[in-house]
């Protein structure tokens, strides 16, 4: 054992199964209180499991230790700066966790009669109204479970909309900067993706767009855009783009992953979008949970509304002196139908609604303004140092809430790829930016600081990048072998895919 190997590095990872020992247990169950018939008398033996499922046998103290220790092998938002581009790693208010945990929310059965779930339905309705105002579109469905689910919903809505008009369209346009979920959703929704090029200002290449539309306007079902896009740039031609798509009869879909740039400043509905998804786990502070849960509500224009998923939360005016009644509308004859069970990720709605109540109109606008300020400042700070040469900005203009650097010169001049820089940042206590996305930018490094970071954090990050580049000028091996201080060091990802081991031994 090297003196400096930390206890965490020294301890070989063991699964909870590997800590199991026959005869141990945590749970104690209540007494049956009823006749204890052999199971075979209740269920035919051929349908029964022969052996108890192999689950760990372990007492509660060791379960807690196991997961607490695992938790310390994670970097998280509360560990430090987490400028993961496109992910909007903003502060997660604990107030939201508190209100989501109230038994009136947390122990409410989803099939509760609406008369006994008025609080929950009103909350959903209020959230719908708020998102409608923020997006500038009149109708909202909260049902989709994440952004990608919203995208699928949007494409199914597009299909239903066209079908209702007797049209069948086959193509969905998306820029080459689009997020992977966009083309994946397109295929899943039964469409074909048509890639649109990016112009020298980082926006949609209008000629290419026109060309792609003109190829066969009747086949254009939809254009999916992120705006600001994944380069962090607002597409200045958005009005013209909308006009072109609408003229062709397509819908315009807004991937709301970047909504955090424009809340209270500009609204997708006003830009001409027909369908918008909102990632509540990005702009509206639902914690990311290490990969979910999230929610991806969609806001739509009037013409799309008839097709919204079932059920829809509605507010019915109360008659003779009664207050309004909130209900689940299950009819909706033109609806595309359900996208999932019950009403959606309600717990996420509680958190996001609490967030909107906390910030209010001004707070939301200020959040976006500060996100944009922080991003531009960090961009300027980096540009002023070594990164200006080694890691230049991909499209050099003011960005919105994030920006993309290219590690191409760094690779060429120092032999360091973007991944090396990312790994070395770990030793400095930072989460690296998103790497190698968008695909358009060579050796991309996508930086999104969010509004909840301090100037000090931005400065410290810029200083770390500076230091790593300086260090690499004298000894590039340091970064190439980084990280050194993490619980494990660089991992063999290829092996994990070539010969996948995707489950462990169960005792």
């Amino acid at each position, binding site marked *: 054992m090297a003196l400096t190997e930390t206890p965490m590095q020294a301890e070989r*990872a063991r*699964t909870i199964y590997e800590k199991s020992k026959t005869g141990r247990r*945590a749970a104690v*169950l209540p007494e049956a*209180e009823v*006749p204890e018939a052999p199971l075979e008398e209740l*269920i*035919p033996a*051929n349908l029964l*499991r022969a052996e*108890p*499922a192999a*689950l760990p*046998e372990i007492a509660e103290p060791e379960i*807690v230790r196991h997961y607490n220790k*695992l938790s310390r092998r994670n*970097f998280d938002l*509360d560990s430090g700066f*987490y400028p993961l581009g496109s992910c909007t790693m903003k502060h997660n208010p604990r107030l939201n*966790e508190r209100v989501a945990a109230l038994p009136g*929310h*947390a*122990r*409410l059965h989803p*099939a*509760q009669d609406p008369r006994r779930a*008025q609080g929950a339905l009103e909350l959903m309705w209020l959230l719908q109204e708020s998102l409608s*105002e923020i997006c500038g579109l009149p109708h909202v469905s909260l049902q989709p479970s994440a*952004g990608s689910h919203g995208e*699928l919903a949007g494409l199914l809505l597009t*299909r239903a909309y066209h079908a209702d008009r007797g049209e069948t369209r086959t193509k969905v346009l998306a820029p080459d900067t689009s997020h*992977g979920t966009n083309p994946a959703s*397109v295929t*899943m929704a039964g469409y074909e993706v048509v890639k649109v090029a990016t112009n020298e200002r980082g926006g949609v290449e209008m000629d290419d767009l026109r060309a792609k539309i003109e190829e066969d306007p009747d086949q254009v079902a939809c254009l999916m855009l992120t705006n600001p896009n994944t380069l962090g740039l607002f597409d200045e031609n958005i009005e013209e783009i909308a006009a072109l798509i609408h003229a062709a009869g397509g819908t315009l879909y807004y991937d709301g992953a970047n909504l955090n740039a*424009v809340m209270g400043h*500009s609204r997708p509905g006003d830009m001409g979008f027909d369908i918008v998804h909102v990632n509540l786990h990005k702009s509206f502070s639902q914690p*990311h949970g*290490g990969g*979910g849960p999230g929610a991806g509500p969609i806001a739509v224009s009037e013409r799309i509304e008839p097709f919204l998923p079932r059920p829809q939360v509605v507010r019915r005016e109360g008659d003779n002196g009664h207050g309004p009644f909130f209900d689940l509308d299950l009819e909706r004859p033109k609806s595309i*139908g*359900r996208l999932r*069970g*019950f009403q959606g*990720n309600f*717990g*996420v709605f509680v958190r996001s609604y609490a967030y909107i*109540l906390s*910030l209010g*109109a001004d707070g939301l*606008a200020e*959040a976006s303004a500060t996100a*944009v300020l922080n991003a531009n400042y960090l961009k300027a700070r980096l540009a002023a140092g070594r990164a200006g040469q080694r890691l230049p900005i991909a499209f050099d203009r003011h960005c919105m809430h994030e920006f993309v650097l290219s590690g191409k010169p760094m690779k060429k001049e120092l032999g360091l790829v973007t991944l090396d820089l990312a790994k070395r940042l*770990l030793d400095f206590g930072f989460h690296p930016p998103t790497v190698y996305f968008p695909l358009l930018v060579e050796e991309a490094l996508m930086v999104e600081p969010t509004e909840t970071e301090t100037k000090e954090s931005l400065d410290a990050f810029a200083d770390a990048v500076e230091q790593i580049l300086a260090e690499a000028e004298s000894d590039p091996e340091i970064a190439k072998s980084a990280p050194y201080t993490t619980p*494990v060091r660089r*991992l063999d*990802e290829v092996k*994990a*895919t070539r010969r996948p081991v995707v*489950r*462990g031994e169960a005792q």
Partner: protein
Amino acid sequence: MTRYTSATPDDRAEMLAAIGVDSVDELFEQIPEPLRLGRPLALPQGLSEAEVYERLAGLAERNADAEEQVCFVGAGMYDHYVPAIVDAITSRSEFLTPYTPYQPEISQGGLQVMFEFQTAMSELTGLPVSNAGLYEGPSSVASAGYLAMGATKRRRFVVSRGLHPHSRETLATYAQGYGAELVEVGLDGGLTDAAALAAAVDAETAAVFLQSPNFLGAVEDVEALGAAAKEHGALLVVACDPITLSVLKPPGEQGADIALGEGQPLGNRLDFGGPSFGFFCATEAQIRRMPGRIAGETEDVDGRRGFVLALQTREQHIRREKATNNICTAQALNALGAMVHLAWLGRHGFRELGELLARRTAYARERLAAVEGVELLHGAPVVREFAVALDAPVEAVLERCAERGIAAGYPLGREYPEHANGLLVAITERRTRAQIDALADALGAAVAAERGAFRSDSDQKAPLSEGAA
């Protein structure tokens, strides 16, 4: 600077100077002027934390939750006791706040949890490959459809009417997109009609979808029903309630190619329906067609064991339009809750839980069947949920029970018009014998009262006694 932000006026001035602009507004000038909102959002001003709390607590109070009512409602989500360590662990920032583990060196915690979860779900379902979780149950069914189409190049699904109505409807929704046709096979005596199923499956069938226990609580003979699928080279997709896998034969041992389901009963609260998670397991043959994240084992440069996201070449961020699914953000934290719950239950506790449920359910079923005006809707074997038919309008009976503080069950009529007077009753380990007895009393009283009401009101209401099995 308002809530959660830090930029003071001094900070702002310094930052603007470094950027080389005079105001933040200048940065927003890239947005064409007509598209700038130019007014405040029509939303209220922000509130203090205490006020937000009061506001939300006020809304929560207007819901009748399972802390307040005795809850016999199931239908896919169940009022199990979530052990305190689940909350303690899932609320740790290190699990609560990170993104999907794209940087494995600093995400070993989350990745190892996924690996453990996969192991556990694989054990439960008897299938070798599990992913790290999907959104929830019904959309997992729809994802299985997408997988089956990719695997078989066929476009026809044969679906048991015992599959959760939400799953059937979600599958139909997705099918509009990826272009598949659904054929439904009815139930008979609470169980999927085997002959009809066999007749429905053909060489164009991509997959057969079963659920066991099915929506009416009945345990299906998956192996027997699945034979038709095997015969025609269709995939056998089995939806299941993970809690019942404590006592039931794993779908993997019954010929299932895919076993999936709603994960809520494992370590997740009711939350009015979400967030929870879907689990998704399959045979080795499908490993490169799986939807969602999968953690895999590997080593670091020093030979330390570690975990990474494996088989990413299936996924949207690498494969884009050729991805096996579009899912990105899933439900990692909910899957963690499930894993902690399963570890807490452990090998023996999990089994005992299943036995407890089966016994209490048998007791409840017998107890309710003995009530005047209540009959069993089917006599098929059940584990933790069963269906009865009432000799009175269900909604009115439910209302009467609710007035006694009991949520008596899930009314079947809307989704199964053939069981207009059907009621689905679910049991968890929280439902004591005394509560079951109280339910029987409440149901008996309510049915009797409604029959009285009906007699004195018979020209206005429809007859009630159709359809009991």
